[in-house]
């Protein structure tokens, strides 16, 4: 009788553990998963960005390369058509000047996005619920290339235009 009981309890535990593991894998790993990381202590700041790129919930917030907090939520503001990012800053970093700026930056060449805070010069510091006014959006590589290309094209045109007008006037639009 005792051994049947052990058997049943053991098998039950095994099957439950197995399904718990499967449940964890199917629900927690894909995007919808709960956040497992980190604490919830600290204070919150918000910042509006024109474009956050592929910034994600949980991405780090850094100052001078040192992690000071993390991205808590990213929402779309349907009035200003901007991304509203809420940051959680760890409690020990409570001396961030309230005219600091925030920018979306990239780790390494292919790394994920993070938010870098550049300190301002103000004597007053951010409080919980503060708002970072100065923001710089994520740099979209395609746009950058487009701009660069456009500069080249216009320079090229200027150069050829100058030559053209020098050699034979009026042929150039």
């Amino acid at each position, binding site marked *: 009788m005792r051994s049947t009981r052990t*058997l*049943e309890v*053991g*098998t039950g*535990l*095994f*099957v439950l*553990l*197995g*399904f718990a*593991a*499967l449940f*964890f*894998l*199917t629900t*927690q*790993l*894909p*995007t*919808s*998963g709960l*956040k*497992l*990381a*980190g604490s919830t202590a600290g204070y919150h700041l918000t910042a509006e960005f024109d474009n956050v790129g*592929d910034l*994600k*919930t*949980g*991405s*780090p917030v850094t100052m001078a390369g040192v*992690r000071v907090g*993390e*991205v808590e939520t990213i929402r779309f503001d349907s009035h200003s058509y901007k991304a509203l990012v809420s940051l959680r800053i760890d409690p020990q970093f409570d001396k961030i000047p309230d005219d600091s700026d925030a920018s979306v930056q990239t*780790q*390494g*060449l*292919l*790394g*994920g996005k*993070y938010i870098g805070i550049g300190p301002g010069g103000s004597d007053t510091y951010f409080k919980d619920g503060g708002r970072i006014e100065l923001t710089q959006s994520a740099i979209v590589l395609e746009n950058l290339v487009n701009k660069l290309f456009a500069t080249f094209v216009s320079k090229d045109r200027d150069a050829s235009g100058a030559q053209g007008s020098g050699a034979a006037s009026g042929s150039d639009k």
Partner: protein
Amino acid sequence: MSAVRVTGQLALFLLGLLAQCGPALARPRLVVQQIYNAGARSLIIVMLSGFFVGMVLGLQGFDLLQRFGSEDALGVAAALSLLKELGPVVTALLFAGRAGTSLTSEIGLMRATDQLNAMQIMAVDPLRYVVAPRFLGGVIAMPLLAAMFNVVGLFGAQLVGVQLMGVDRGAFWSQMQGSVELNDVWEGVVKSCVFGVACSLIAVHSGYTAEPTAEGVGLATTRTVVASSVLTLFLDYMLTAAFL
């Protein structure tokens, strides 16, 4: 020629076994006993191995990704390699060594001591009462074992990557959740189900067809490990190719 014959034997054996699986399920007690033997008792070794495999992944992955300055992708790298390859394959190899051998020697010894013949004389089908429950137990246990291997491995990778190597914890999990899709998880589950069928089938078959001598049982046990391992790795390649 003998390889062809063994393949044919295996296929016929599988058909006969599948036909007996329904009746075997009608006696869940026997199946539960075998899930306990094959699954619950392999739990420690599978979780321990998973933990170390995860830790190695964390270490190697970190070293590699650091060279490209993208160590935040460690979570993705560890999760995908565990889910899609290491979890199902290593679990199947451990299963073949831990549970497969005991299935083979148990059934082989029943054969050697004429227990199977005695059953047949009493008009009790040994396929139904001895082999099918063991087969089912293995098939059910394998995906569960692989899932636990994956979860423990992930936490092993996190332990090394985040706690020791200093990858950002938020980046580790959020990049992983951003890049792993449900299909990746299912791929691992399907693989481990297939491996479960293959390994259990080989284990019970080589026990059932073992020479009824002490030497024969020993040979059959060795054959189980070798055949299961090779078949697992071969099937892994086929399944990976099919899923890509």
